[in-house]
Protein backbone atom coordinates (compact mmCIF):
# COMPACT_ATOMS: atom_id res chain seq x y z
CA UNK A 1 0.00 0.00 0.00
CA UNK A 2 1.28 3.45 -0.81
CA UNK A 3 2.59 5.58 2.04
CA UNK A 4 -0.09 8.14 1.09
CA UNK A 5 -2.66 5.68 2.39
CA UNK A 6 -0.46 4.45 5.22
CA UNK A 7 -0.20 7.99 6.55
CA UNK A 8 -3.96 7.99 6.92
CA UNK A 9 -3.71 5.16 9.43
CA UNK A 10 -0.91 6.37 11.64
CA UNK A 11 -0.79 10.14 11.83
CA UNK A 12 -3.10 12.61 13.55
CA UNK A 13 -4.87 15.16 11.31
CA UNK A 14 -3.20 18.56 11.12
CA UNK A 15 -5.30 21.39 12.60
CA UNK A 16 -6.17 23.96 9.90
CA UNK A 17 -8.49 26.90 9.78
CA UNK A 18 -12.08 26.01 8.90
CA UNK A 19 -12.14 28.60 6.14
CA UNK A 20 -8.84 27.55 4.50
CA UNK A 21 -9.07 25.36 1.40
CA UNK A 22 -6.64 22.52 1.84
CA UNK A 23 -3.79 22.68 -0.66
CA UNK A 24 -1.00 20.17 -1.06
CA UNK A 25 2.03 20.30 -3.34
CA UNK A 26 3.83 17.18 -4.51
CA UNK A 27 7.40 17.65 -5.69
CA UNK A 28 8.90 14.86 -7.77
CA UNK A 29 12.45 15.13 -9.12
CA UNK A 30 12.75 14.20 -12.79
CA UNK A 31 14.88 11.07 -13.42
CA UNK A 32 16.60 12.02 -10.19
CA UNK A 33 19.77 9.90 -9.97
CA UNK A 34 20.41 10.17 -13.71
CA UNK A 35 19.85 13.95 -13.67
CA UNK A 36 22.30 14.40 -10.77
CA UNK A 37 24.93 12.43 -12.68
CA UNK A 38 24.28 14.29 -15.94
CA UNK A 39 24.66 17.57 -14.06
CA UNK A 40 27.96 16.59 -12.40
CA UNK A 41 29.33 14.55 -15.31
CA UNK A 42 28.77 16.64 -18.44
CA UNK A 43 30.05 13.87 -20.74
CA UNK A 44 26.77 12.01 -20.12
CA UNK A 45 24.49 14.94 -20.93
CA UNK A 46 21.99 14.39 -23.78
CA UNK A 47 23.00 10.72 -23.90
CA UNK A 48 21.27 7.57 -22.68
CA UNK A 49 22.55 7.11 -19.13
CA UNK A 50 21.58 4.31 -16.79
CA UNK A 51 22.35 4.53 -13.09
CA UNK A 52 22.43 0.95 -11.85
CA UNK A 53 22.12 -0.73 -8.53
CA UNK A 54 24.77 -3.40 -8.88
CA UNK A 55 28.12 -4.42 -7.45
CA UNK A 56 29.64 -5.20 -10.83
CA UNK A 57 28.82 -3.12 -13.88
CA UNK A 58 30.56 -5.53 -16.22
CA UNK A 59 28.04 -8.21 -15.32
CA UNK A 60 24.33 -8.45 -16.13
CA UNK A 61 23.30 -8.49 -12.49
CA UNK A 62 21.32 -5.80 -10.74
CA UNK A 63 18.62 -3.37 -11.72
CA UNK A 64 18.42 0.07 -13.27
CA UNK A 65 17.86 2.55 -10.45
CA UNK A 66 17.30 5.49 -12.79
CA UNK A 67 17.25 6.03 -16.53
CA UNK A 68 17.83 9.38 -18.22
CA UNK A 69 15.05 10.62 -20.48
CA UNK A 70 17.24 9.80 -23.48
CA UNK A 71 17.35 6.15 -22.32
CA UNK A 72 13.63 6.03 -21.59
CA UNK A 73 12.94 6.57 -25.29
CA UNK A 74 14.27 3.05 -25.80
CA UNK A 75 11.88 1.55 -23.26
CA UNK A 76 14.34 1.30 -20.38
CA UNK A 77 13.11 2.68 -17.08
CA UNK A 78 13.88 2.33 -13.39
CA UNK A 79 13.30 -1.23 -12.19
CA UNK A 80 14.39 -2.77 -15.51
CA UNK A 81 17.01 -5.48 -14.99
CA UNK A 82 20.52 -4.63 -16.15
CA UNK A 83 20.36 -7.68 -18.40
CA UNK A 84 17.26 -6.40 -20.19
CA UNK A 85 18.68 -2.88 -20.36
CA UNK A 86 21.90 -4.11 -21.99
CA UNK A 87 19.87 -6.00 -24.56
CA UNK A 88 17.88 -2.89 -25.45
CA UNK A 89 20.64 -0.33 -25.05
CA UNK A 90 24.06 -1.98 -25.42
CA UNK A 91 25.81 1.33 -26.15
CA UNK A 92 24.34 3.43 -23.37
CA UNK A 93 26.49 4.64 -20.46
CA UNK A 94 26.12 2.46 -17.36
CA UNK A 95 27.30 3.78 -14.02
CA UNK A 96 26.89 2.58 -10.45
CA UNK A 97 24.66 4.70 -8.23
CA UNK A 98 26.35 7.07 -5.78
CA UNK A 99 23.73 7.24 -3.05
CA UNK A 100 25.75 9.53 -0.78
CA UNK A 101 25.66 12.11 -3.55
CA UNK A 102 21.91 11.71 -4.07
CA UNK A 103 21.22 12.00 -0.34
CA UNK A 104 23.26 15.21 -0.21
CA UNK A 105 21.09 16.65 -3.00
CA UNK A 106 17.92 15.42 -1.27
CA UNK A 107 18.92 17.30 1.88
CA UNK A 108 19.41 20.47 -0.18
CA UNK A 109 16.04 19.90 -1.87
CA UNK A 110 14.28 19.55 1.47
CA UNK A 111 15.96 22.73 2.76
CA UNK A 112 14.42 24.56 -0.20
CA UNK A 113 10.99 22.96 0.37
CA UNK A 114 11.07 23.96 4.05
CA UNK A 115 11.03 27.62 3.00
CA UNK A 116 7.54 27.19 1.57
CA UNK A 117 5.76 25.34 4.38
CA UNK A 118 5.87 24.38 8.02
CA UNK A 119 4.46 20.97 7.13
CA UNK A 120 6.80 18.98 4.90
CA UNK A 121 6.70 15.23 4.43
CA UNK A 122 9.78 13.61 2.93
CA UNK A 123 8.05 10.89 0.95
CA UNK A 124 11.11 9.30 -0.64
CA UNK A 125 14.63 10.22 -1.71
CA UNK A 126 13.25 12.29 -4.60
CA UNK A 127 9.71 13.18 -3.58
CA UNK A 128 8.09 15.41 -0.98
CA UNK A 129 4.63 16.59 0.00
CA UNK A 130 4.13 20.15 1.22
CA UNK A 131 0.90 21.18 2.93
CA UNK A 132 0.74 24.86 1.92
CA UNK A 133 -2.78 25.52 3.23
CA UNK A 134 -1.46 27.93 5.83
CA UNK A 135 1.49 29.38 3.92
CA UNK A 136 0.47 29.76 0.25
CA UNK A 137 -0.77 33.34 0.77
CA UNK A 138 2.79 34.45 1.58
CA UNK A 139 3.79 33.68 -2.01
CA UNK A 140 0.58 34.74 -3.80
CA UNK A 141 -1.51 31.73 -4.86
CA UNK A 142 -0.80 27.99 -4.66
CA UNK A 143 0.27 28.13 -8.31
CA UNK A 144 2.68 31.02 -7.56
CA UNK A 145 4.11 28.99 -4.67
CA UNK A 146 4.67 26.00 -6.93
CA UNK A 147 6.25 28.14 -9.66
CA UNK A 148 8.65 29.76 -7.18
CA UNK A 149 9.56 26.44 -5.63
CA UNK A 150 10.21 24.84 -9.00
CA UNK A 151 12.34 27.80 -10.12
CA UNK A 152 14.36 27.79 -6.91
CA UNK A 153 15.12 24.08 -7.25
CA UNK A 154 16.20 24.61 -10.85
CA UNK A 155 18.43 27.57 -9.92
CA UNK A 156 20.06 26.22 -6.76
CA UNK A 157 20.34 22.52 -7.58
CA UNK A 158 20.52 22.79 -11.37
CA UNK A 159 17.96 19.99 -11.48
CA UNK A 160 14.39 19.92 -12.71
CA UNK A 161 11.35 18.72 -10.80
CA UNK A 162 7.71 18.19 -11.67
CA UNK A 163 5.17 19.70 -9.36
CA UNK A 164 1.55 18.82 -8.76
CA UNK A 165 -0.88 20.95 -6.78
CA UNK A 166 -4.17 19.58 -5.51
CA UNK A 167 -6.62 19.50 -2.62
CA UNK A 168 -4.94 16.43 -1.09
CA UNK A 169 -1.87 14.19 -1.36
CA UNK A 170 -3.47 11.77 -3.79
CA UNK A 171 -4.50 14.43 -6.30
CA UNK A 172 -1.22 16.33 -5.92
CA UNK A 173 0.80 13.17 -6.60
CA UNK A 174 -1.28 12.22 -9.61
CA UNK A 175 -1.04 15.81 -10.88
CA UNK A 176 2.75 15.79 -10.76
CA UNK A 177 2.76 12.64 -12.92
CA UNK A 178 0.66 14.28 -15.65
CA UNK A 179 3.39 16.53 -17.08
CA UNK A 180 7.01 15.44 -16.97
CA UNK A 181 9.76 16.59 -17.04
CA UNK A 182 9.66 20.09 -15.52
CA UNK A 183 5.87 20.07 -15.48
CA UNK A 184 3.50 22.04 -13.31
CA UNK A 185 -0.10 20.87 -12.96
CA UNK A 186 -2.66 22.52 -10.73
CA UNK A 187 -5.88 20.57 -10.26
CA UNK A 188 -8.88 22.30 -8.75
CA UNK A 189 -11.50 20.02 -7.12
CA UNK A 190 -14.09 20.89 -9.81
CA UNK A 191 -11.68 19.78 -12.59
CA UNK A 192 -11.14 16.34 -11.07
CA UNK A 193 -13.71 14.22 -12.98
CA UNK A 194 -12.67 15.57 -16.38
CA UNK A 195 -8.97 14.97 -15.76
CA UNK A 196 -9.07 11.69 -13.83
CA UNK A 197 -11.88 9.76 -15.55
CA UNK A 198 -10.00 8.77 -18.75
CA UNK A 199 -6.78 7.79 -16.93
CA UNK A 200 -5.98 4.07 -16.49
CA UNK A 201 -6.59 2.70 -12.99
CA UNK A 202 -2.89 2.14 -12.39
CA UNK A 203 -2.42 5.92 -12.41
CA UNK A 204 -3.71 5.77 -8.83
CA UNK A 205 -0.73 5.45 -6.46
CA UNK A 206 -0.72 1.99 -4.92
CA UNK A 207 -2.43 0.25 -7.83
CA UNK A 208 0.14 -2.15 -9.21
CA UNK A 209 0.19 -4.84 -11.85
CA UNK A 210 -1.68 -7.36 -9.72
CA UNK A 211 -4.50 -5.02 -8.64
CA UNK A 212 -4.83 -3.78 -12.22
CA UNK A 213 -5.34 -7.39 -13.34
CA UNK A 214 -8.00 -7.96 -10.68
CA UNK A 215 -9.82 -4.78 -11.68
CA UNK A 216 -9.50 -5.64 -15.36
CA UNK A 217 -11.18 -8.98 -14.65
CA UNK A 218 -14.33 -7.15 -13.50
CA UNK A 219 -14.25 -4.73 -16.43
CA UNK A 220 -12.62 -1.76 -14.70
CA UNK A 221 -9.84 -0.21 -16.77
CA UNK A 222 -10.15 3.51 -16.20
CA UNK A 223 -10.59 5.68 -13.13
CA UNK A 224 -13.97 6.76 -14.54
CA UNK A 225 -15.11 3.13 -14.63
CA UNK A 226 -13.80 2.65 -11.09
CA UNK A 227 -15.83 5.64 -9.91
CA UNK A 228 -18.96 4.20 -11.53
CA UNK A 229 -18.51 0.78 -9.90
CA UNK A 230 -20.83 0.18 -6.93
CA UNK A 231 -18.95 0.78 -3.69
CA UNK A 232 -20.53 -2.40 -2.26
CA UNK A 233 -18.94 -4.46 -5.04
CA UNK A 234 -15.53 -2.92 -4.38
CA UNK A 235 -15.85 -3.62 -0.66
CA UNK A 236 -16.97 -7.17 -1.30
CA UNK A 237 -14.16 -7.89 -3.76
CA UNK A 238 -11.23 -6.09 -2.17
CA UNK A 239 -12.23 -5.27 1.42
CA UNK A 240 -10.87 -2.05 2.95
CA UNK A 241 -8.54 -1.52 -0.02
CA UNK A 242 -11.58 -1.61 -2.32
CA UNK A 243 -13.23 1.19 -0.33
CA UNK A 244 -10.06 3.30 -0.38
CA UNK A 245 -9.68 2.75 -4.13
CA UNK A 246 -13.29 3.69 -4.77
CA UNK A 247 -12.79 6.92 -2.84
CA UNK A 248 -9.52 7.54 -4.70
CA UNK A 249 -11.43 7.39 -8.00
CA UNK A 250 -13.31 10.50 -6.82
CA UNK A 251 -10.05 12.15 -5.75
CA UNK A 252 -10.92 11.73 -2.07
CA UNK A 253 -7.97 11.25 0.26
CA UNK A 254 -7.98 12.42 3.87
CA UNK A 255 -4.42 11.33 4.69
CA UNK A 256 -2.50 14.18 6.29
CA UNK A 257 0.91 15.45 5.26
CA UNK A 258 3.05 14.03 8.05
CA UNK A 259 6.05 16.21 8.92
CA UNK A 260 9.18 14.10 8.96
CA UNK A 261 9.99 14.91 12.56
CA UNK A 262 6.79 13.15 13.60
CA UNK A 263 7.99 10.12 11.72
CA UNK A 264 6.12 7.49 9.78
CA UNK A 265 5.44 4.13 11.28
CA UNK A 266 8.12 1.67 10.16
CA UNK A 267 6.61 -1.65 9.08
CA UNK A 268 9.66 -3.75 8.24
CA UNK A 269 13.40 -3.87 7.66
CA UNK A 270 14.62 -5.88 4.71
CA UNK A 271 17.36 -6.37 2.22
CA UNK A 272 17.58 -8.30 -1.04
CA UNK A 273 20.18 -9.23 -3.64
CA UNK A 274 19.81 -9.98 -7.32
CA UNK A 275 21.89 -13.00 -8.40
CA UNK A 276 22.01 -12.63 -12.19
CA UNK A 277 21.50 -15.98 -13.85
CA UNK A 278 20.97 -17.46 -10.43
CA UNK A 279 22.31 -20.10 -8.13
CA UNK A 280 21.02 -23.43 -6.84
CA UNK A 281 23.94 -23.81 -4.42
CA UNK A 282 22.12 -23.87 -1.08
CA UNK A 283 25.26 -23.33 0.97
CA UNK A 284 26.10 -20.25 -1.05
CA UNK A 285 22.52 -18.97 -0.78
CA UNK A 286 22.64 -19.41 3.01
CA UNK A 287 25.80 -17.28 3.10
CA UNK A 288 24.09 -14.64 0.97
CA UNK A 289 21.18 -14.70 3.42
CA UNK A 290 23.60 -14.19 6.30
CA UNK A 291 24.93 -11.03 4.67
CA UNK A 292 21.38 -9.82 4.09
CA UNK A 293 20.42 -10.57 7.72
CA UNK A 294 23.49 -8.62 8.86
CA UNK A 295 22.41 -5.63 6.77
CA UNK A 296 18.75 -5.68 7.81
CA UNK A 297 19.43 -6.14 11.54
CA UNK A 298 22.14 -3.49 11.51
CA UNK A 299 19.53 -1.00 10.29
CA UNK A 300 17.10 -2.26 12.94
CA UNK A 301 19.62 -1.68 15.72
CA UNK A 302 20.46 1.76 14.35
CA UNK A 303 16.78 2.73 14.33
CA UNK A 304 16.13 1.04 17.68
CA UNK A 305 13.71 -1.64 16.50
CA UNK A 306 13.18 -5.29 17.37
CA UNK A 307 11.19 -7.72 15.24
CA UNK A 308 9.49 -11.07 15.76
CA UNK A 309 8.61 -12.28 12.25
CA UNK A 310 11.07 -13.24 9.53
CA UNK A 311 10.16 -13.45 5.86
CA UNK A 312 12.30 -14.84 3.05
CA UNK A 313 11.69 -13.90 -0.55
CA UNK A 314 13.08 -16.00 -3.38
CA UNK A 315 12.75 -15.36 -7.09
CA UNK A 316 13.04 -18.69 -8.90
CA UNK A 317 14.44 -18.57 -12.42
CA UNK A 318 12.70 -15.27 -13.25
CA UNK A 319 9.43 -17.20 -13.46
CA UNK A 320 8.16 -17.59 -9.94
CA UNK A 321 8.36 -15.55 -6.78
CA UNK A 322 7.79 -17.13 -3.46
CA UNK A 323 7.67 -15.66 -0.03
CA UNK A 324 7.74 -17.62 3.21
CA UNK A 325 7.42 -16.22 6.70
CA UNK A 326 7.50 -17.50 10.23
CA UNK A 327 7.54 -16.18 13.77
CA UNK A 328 10.68 -15.99 15.89
CA UNK A 329 8.86 -16.58 19.16
CA UNK A 330 10.44 -13.47 20.65
CA UNK A 331 11.71 -10.05 19.64
CA UNK A 332 15.24 -9.71 18.34
CA UNK A 333 17.56 -7.44 16.38
CA UNK A 334 20.43 -9.90 16.13
CA UNK A 335 21.52 -11.33 12.77
CA UNK A 336 22.25 -14.83 14.07
CA UNK A 337 18.75 -15.62 15.20
CA UNK A 338 17.14 -14.02 12.16
CA UNK A 339 19.51 -15.98 9.92
CA UNK A 340 18.75 -19.30 11.65
CA UNK A 341 15.06 -18.87 10.89
CA UNK A 342 15.62 -17.47 7.39
CA UNK A 343 17.92 -20.39 6.58
CA UNK A 344 15.25 -22.88 7.67
CA UNK A 345 12.72 -21.17 5.43
CA UNK A 346 15.15 -21.30 2.51
CA UNK A 347 16.04 -24.96 3.06
CA UNK A 348 12.36 -25.89 2.94
CA UNK A 349 12.41 -24.74 -0.69
CA UNK A 350 15.39 -26.93 -1.58
CA UNK A 351 13.27 -29.02 -3.97
CA UNK A 352 12.19 -25.92 -5.91
CA UNK A 353 15.78 -24.67 -6.03
CA UNK A 354 16.89 -27.92 -7.66
CA UNK A 355 14.54 -27.15 -10.55
CA UNK A 356 14.85 -23.36 -10.76
CA UNK A 357 17.94 -21.51 -9.53
CA UNK A 358 17.33 -18.54 -7.26
CA UNK A 359 17.85 -15.30 -9.20
CA UNK A 360 17.06 -13.06 -6.26
CA UNK A 361 16.87 -13.57 -2.52
CA UNK A 362 15.66 -11.24 0.13
CA UNK A 363 14.98 -11.24 3.84
CA UNK A 364 12.79 -8.96 5.90
CA UNK A 365 11.93 -8.66 9.56
CA UNK A 366 8.40 -7.50 10.39
CA UNK A 367 6.09 -7.33 13.39
CA UNK A 368 8.26 -4.63 14.91
CA UNK A 369 8.44 -2.99 18.31
CA UNK A 370 10.55 -0.08 19.46
CA UNK A 371 13.40 -1.18 21.69
CA UNK A 372 12.52 1.37 24.38
CA UNK A 373 9.01 -0.12 24.63
CA UNK A 374 10.61 -3.12 26.31
CA UNK A 375 10.64 -6.74 25.27
CA UNK A 376 9.76 -9.90 27.04
CA UNK A 377 12.84 -11.79 28.19
CA UNK A 378 13.08 -15.38 27.05
CA UNK A 379 15.66 -18.11 27.45
CA UNK A 380 17.10 -16.98 24.09
CA UNK A 381 17.99 -13.58 25.48
CA UNK A 382 20.45 -15.24 27.83
CA UNK A 383 21.88 -17.33 24.99
CA UNK A 384 22.14 -14.24 22.79
CA UNK A 385 24.21 -12.24 25.25
CA UNK A 386 27.43 -13.07 23.43
CA UNK A 387 26.02 -12.26 20.02
CA UNK A 388 24.53 -9.04 21.37
CA UNK A 389 27.96 -8.03 22.68
CA UNK A 390 29.59 -8.82 19.32
CA UNK A 391 26.87 -6.91 17.46
CA UNK A 392 27.41 -3.90 19.75
CA UNK A 393 31.15 -3.90 19.00
CA UNK A 394 30.52 -4.27 15.25
CA UNK A 395 28.04 -1.38 15.41
CA UNK A 396 30.57 0.81 17.20
CA UNK A 397 33.24 0.01 14.61
CA UNK A 398 30.88 0.71 11.71
CA UNK A 399 29.62 3.91 13.32
CA UNK A 400 33.17 5.12 13.65
CA UNK A 401 34.87 3.84 10.49
CA UNK A 402 31.98 3.32 8.07
CA UNK A 403 29.82 0.41 6.94
CA UNK A 404 32.61 -1.44 5.16
CA UNK A 405 34.97 -1.34 8.14
CA UNK A 406 34.24 -4.85 9.33
CA UNK A 407 32.61 -8.00 7.97
CA UNK A 408 32.22 -11.67 8.86
CA UNK A 409 34.97 -14.11 7.90
CA UNK A 410 32.34 -16.33 6.32
CA UNK A 411 31.34 -13.51 4.00
CA UNK A 412 34.84 -12.61 2.80
CA UNK A 413 34.95 -15.21 0.06
CA UNK A 414 31.34 -14.78 -0.95
CA UNK A 415 32.06 -11.95 -3.34
CA UNK A 416 34.59 -14.03 -5.27
CA UNK A 417 32.26 -17.01 -5.34
CA UNK A 418 29.53 -14.66 -6.47
CA UNK A 419 31.69 -13.25 -9.25
CA UNK A 420 32.69 -16.74 -10.22
CA UNK A 421 29.07 -17.74 -10.61
CA UNK A 422 27.93 -18.20 -14.18
CA UNK A 423 26.79 -14.94 -15.67
CA UNK A 424 23.62 -14.42 -17.61
CA UNK A 425 24.06 -14.66 -21.35
CA UNK A 426 22.62 -12.24 -23.82
CA UNK A 427 19.79 -13.76 -25.78
CA UNK A 428 18.62 -16.33 -23.27
CA UNK A 429 15.11 -14.85 -23.30
Amino acid at each position, binding site marked *: MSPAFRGHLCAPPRPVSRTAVRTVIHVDMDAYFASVEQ*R*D*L*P*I*YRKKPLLVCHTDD*LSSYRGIVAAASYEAREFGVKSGTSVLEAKLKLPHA*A*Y*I*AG*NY*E*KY*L*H*NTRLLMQICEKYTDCLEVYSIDEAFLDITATAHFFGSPRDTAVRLQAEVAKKLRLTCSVGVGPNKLVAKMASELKKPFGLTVIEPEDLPGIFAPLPVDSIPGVGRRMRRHLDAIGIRTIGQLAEAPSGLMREKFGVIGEILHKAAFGIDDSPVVPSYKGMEVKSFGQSLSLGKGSADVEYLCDVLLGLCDGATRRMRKAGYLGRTVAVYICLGRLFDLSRRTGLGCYTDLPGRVHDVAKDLLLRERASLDVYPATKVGVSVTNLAKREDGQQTTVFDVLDEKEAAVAAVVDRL*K*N*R*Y*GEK*AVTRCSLIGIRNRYKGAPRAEIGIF
Partner: protein
Amino acid sequence: MAVDVHEPIEVSAVFVRGRLKPVSFMWSRRHHKISEITGVYKYSAGTSACYGYTVRSGDDLYEISLNTGEMAWRLERIHGCESGV
Protein backbone atom coordinates in the same frame (compact mmCIF):
# COMPACT_ATOMS: atom_id res chain seq x y z
CA MET B 1 33.07 4.78 -19.83
CA ALA B 2 33.71 4.69 -16.08
CA VAL B 3 36.64 3.05 -14.32
CA ASP B 4 36.79 2.43 -10.58
CA VAL B 5 40.19 3.34 -9.09
CA HIS B 6 39.87 3.88 -5.31
CA GLU B 7 43.53 4.83 -4.81
CA PRO B 8 45.14 7.41 -2.53
CA ILE B 9 46.34 10.53 -4.34
CA GLU B 10 48.14 13.77 -3.56
CA VAL B 11 46.05 16.88 -4.06
CA SER B 12 46.88 20.58 -4.03
CA ALA B 13 43.97 22.66 -2.84
CA VAL B 14 43.21 26.22 -1.82
CA PHE B 15 40.56 27.80 0.37
CA VAL B 16 38.31 30.19 -1.52
CA ARG B 17 35.72 32.14 0.52
CA GLY B 18 35.64 29.44 3.17
CA ARG B 19 35.41 26.58 0.72
CA LEU B 20 38.05 24.07 -0.18
CA LYS B 21 38.88 24.01 -3.86
CA PRO B 22 41.19 21.31 -5.27
CA VAL B 23 43.41 22.73 -8.03
CA SER B 24 45.54 19.79 -9.11
CA PHE B 25 46.42 16.21 -8.20
CA MET B 26 49.14 13.64 -8.77
CA TRP B 27 48.12 10.21 -9.92
CA SER B 28 50.16 7.53 -11.69
CA ARG B 29 53.17 9.85 -11.58
CA ARG B 30 51.24 12.34 -13.70
CA HIS B 31 50.25 15.83 -12.71
CA HIS B 32 46.60 16.58 -13.47
CA LYS B 33 45.57 20.22 -13.48
CA ILE B 34 41.92 20.69 -12.53
CA SER B 35 40.18 22.99 -14.99
CA GLU B 36 36.67 22.81 -13.53
CA ILE B 37 34.82 21.48 -10.51
CA THR B 38 31.53 20.15 -11.84
CA GLY B 39 30.05 18.84 -8.60
CA VAL B 40 30.56 18.73 -4.83
CA TYR B 41 28.75 16.78 -2.16
CA LYS B 42 29.22 15.99 1.50
CA TYR B 43 28.77 12.66 3.24
CA SER B 44 30.05 10.83 6.27
CA ALA B 45 32.11 7.69 6.68
CA GLY B 46 31.67 6.63 10.27
CA THR B 47 32.38 9.72 12.35
CA SER B 48 34.46 11.42 9.64
CA ALA B 49 33.01 14.07 7.36
CA CYS B 50 33.93 13.45 3.73
CA TYR B 51 33.64 15.53 0.60
CA GLY B 52 33.22 14.18 -2.89
CA TYR B 53 34.31 16.32 -5.84
CA THR B 54 33.76 15.73 -9.52
CA VAL B 55 36.50 17.55 -11.40
CA ARG B 56 37.56 17.97 -15.00
CA SER B 57 41.14 17.55 -16.10
CA GLY B 58 41.76 17.47 -19.82
CA ASP B 59 38.87 15.67 -21.49
CA ASP B 60 38.23 13.35 -18.56
CA LEU B 61 36.18 13.71 -15.41
CA TYR B 62 37.56 12.45 -12.10
CA GLU B 63 35.70 11.71 -8.91
CA ILE B 64 37.97 12.47 -5.96
CA SER B 65 37.18 12.44 -2.26
CA LEU B 66 38.56 13.94 0.92
CA ASN B 67 38.19 12.19 4.26
CA THR B 68 38.57 14.99 6.82
CA GLY B 69 39.08 12.48 9.65
CA GLU B 70 42.17 11.02 8.01
CA MET B 71 42.96 14.15 5.97
CA ALA B 72 43.44 11.86 3.01
CA TRP B 73 42.45 12.25 -0.62
CA ARG B 74 41.46 9.39 -2.90
CA LEU B 75 40.77 9.03 -6.57
CA GLU B 76 37.55 7.06 -6.75
CA ARG B 77 36.52 6.89 -10.39
CA ILE B 78 37.37 8.19 -13.85
CA HIS B 79 34.83 8.96 -16.53
CA GLY B 80 35.82 9.66 -20.11
CA CYS B 81 37.86 8.75 -23.13
CA GLU B 82 41.38 8.76 -21.63
CA SER B 83 40.34 6.12 -19.13
CA GLY B 84 40.60 3.70 -22.01
CA VAL B 85 37.23 2.08 -21.51
